[in-house]
């Protein structure tokens, strides 16, 4: 009879502390500032808005790092850490001045880098696409009163007039007279932004989570490239001329 069969309930602890992900996390400069042992008092969990609704516990995050089990860390990086809302309530209430929020932030960066985040972030594809192709993702159109009944009947009335209201509010700012996005950035601005992402390596990082988004952005850039590069050249020449 094997050991497991004899005692099916007892969990066998085999420490695997010191694995690759654990080492990567401990390398982050934030960890030392964010973990000073843990009293297991539960103050963080009691104050945590994410813990009230999701399968997430800042206390567990601290305990997981203290224990350092590689398999558990990997599991957390794939799922649980993405439930944190980064409100930092844990940090400002913890009697040990720990910050699960900072640990989570460091772990998220590593999860992205190590290609563990794709599944957890799949739901954010739309947002990422909008940010990468438009520069912003929130729009007045998204805030439909049907989805937020607690806003009351006045919102229904206001919502039907949102275009008129924006036109009045932002007279003289044509980019603001839209309701399908927060504001309409100029093509040139978007191109410039995409160029920065590409050259800084940020786009490549996005690619580890949303590979197809890289193609979308690159297609988007290609379409505009000729016109925009000419514009950049023109600007450069103007700048040179002004220097002389």
């Amino acid at each position, binding site marked *: 009879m094997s050991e497991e069969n004899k005692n099916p309930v007892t969990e066998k602890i085999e420490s695997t502390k010191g694995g690759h992900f654990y080492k990567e996390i401990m390398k982050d400069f934030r960890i030392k500032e964010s973990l000073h042992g843990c*009293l297991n008092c*539960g*103050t963080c969990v*009691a*104050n945590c808005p994410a*813990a009230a609704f999701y399968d997430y516990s800042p*206390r567990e995050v601290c305990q997981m790092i203290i224990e350092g089990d590689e398999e558990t860390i990997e599991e957390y990086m794939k799922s649980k850490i993405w439930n944190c809302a980064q409100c930092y309530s844990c940090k400002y*209430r913890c*009697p040990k*001045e720990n910050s699960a929020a900072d640990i989570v932030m460091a772990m998220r960066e590593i999860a992205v880098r190590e290609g563990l985040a794709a599944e957890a972030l799949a739901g954010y594809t739309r947002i990422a696409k909008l940010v990468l192709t438009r520069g912003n993702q929130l729009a007045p159109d998204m805030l439909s009163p049907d989805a937020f009944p607690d806003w009351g009947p006045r919102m229904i009335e206001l919502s039907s007039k949102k275009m008129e209201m924006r036109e009045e509010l932002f007279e003289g700012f044509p980019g603001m007279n839209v309701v399908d996005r927060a504001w309409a950035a100029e093509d040139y601005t978007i191109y410039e932004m995409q160029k920065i992402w590409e050259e800084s390596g940020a786009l490549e990082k996005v690619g580890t989570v949303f590979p197809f988004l890289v193609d979308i952005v690159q297609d988007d850039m290609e379409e505009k490239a000729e016109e925009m590069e000419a514009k950049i050249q023109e600007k450069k020449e103007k700048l040179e001329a002004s220097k002389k």
Partner: protein
Amino acid sequence: MKTVLVIGGGVTGLKAASELAEMGYNVSLVEKEDYLGGQVTKHKYYKLAPDLRLAGDVIYPVIKAVESNSNIKVLKHSQITAVSGAAPEFKAKIKNSKGESEETFGAIVVATGFDHFDPTVKQEYGYGRFKDVVTNAEVEEMLNPNGPTKGELKRPSDGKTPKKIAIFQCVGSRDRQVGNPYCCRVGCVVSTKQAIEIKEKYPDSEVYVYYMDMRMFGRGWEELYGKAMEDYEIIFTRGRGAEVTLKNQQLSLRAEETIMDRPIQHSVDMIILAAGMAAGEGTIDAAKVLGIKQNDYGFLAPKDDFLSPNESSKPGIFIAGADKGPMDIENCIVEGAAVAAKVAGSLKN
């Protein structure tokens, strides 16, 4: 015969004064308030853990031993404003309503004690905002028949007896956020004692204690803890009280039930904060006037914690009791006697 100056008329100072007087020394006992007995008298401590004997049965004999001894001069409403000289001849300025006078002393005993931690700092507990969030010192006053409510536990908001009572442990202790990472050393047993007193007086009430660890290291403390669970059905929940809000005139607390691994919300009628110990105002003043060393938290630092626990950083100035750090009454009395022996020894040389 040299005269000894004892600063502070709490348990430790009283015990030190009477022990020294019994050995034949003259003692001047300086107390800033107009009563003796320190925090025990100030907050009308009612019963003492773990035996639930009356605090008066302990404190009155100690006061009487001082008041009935002709070798002791008790100076109430007095404060030391300046000290000069060195052992064995100190010159201390004593200020009171009659004016300022200077006297010479052979040795000085500092027994200036502690102050209850002020929980207003922990604003998430709502002390000062919500009337029915009270401190453990206020509960002592309430439970004492000579107190403001004549021994009845009453909600400050409406004067009614609360049915559901929660006690928060470690308020202002074991907490880096308020700069007090140390343990108050008495909160656990005091809360257990108060919970039993409440259940004894109001058997229908429900008492919940929110704790991190119950540190029952004193004489008879663990047994009292057992009694609280077995005989009084007090509910101990392992999770630190995290936040208090007021919903529809009802107090609501948040915590994590750490053993069951879930956040909880609990509606109660009254919340008692087991506020810990902070260095007393008198202790901080004494350190300044005498120029003796304090530790990181404002308490007085002994010359050597193990080998000379009652000597300050300056020769001829001795320290004892809760001005050195959190201490219970039982140990304060031991400290008072210990410092008296040390002073007597130093004056003989």
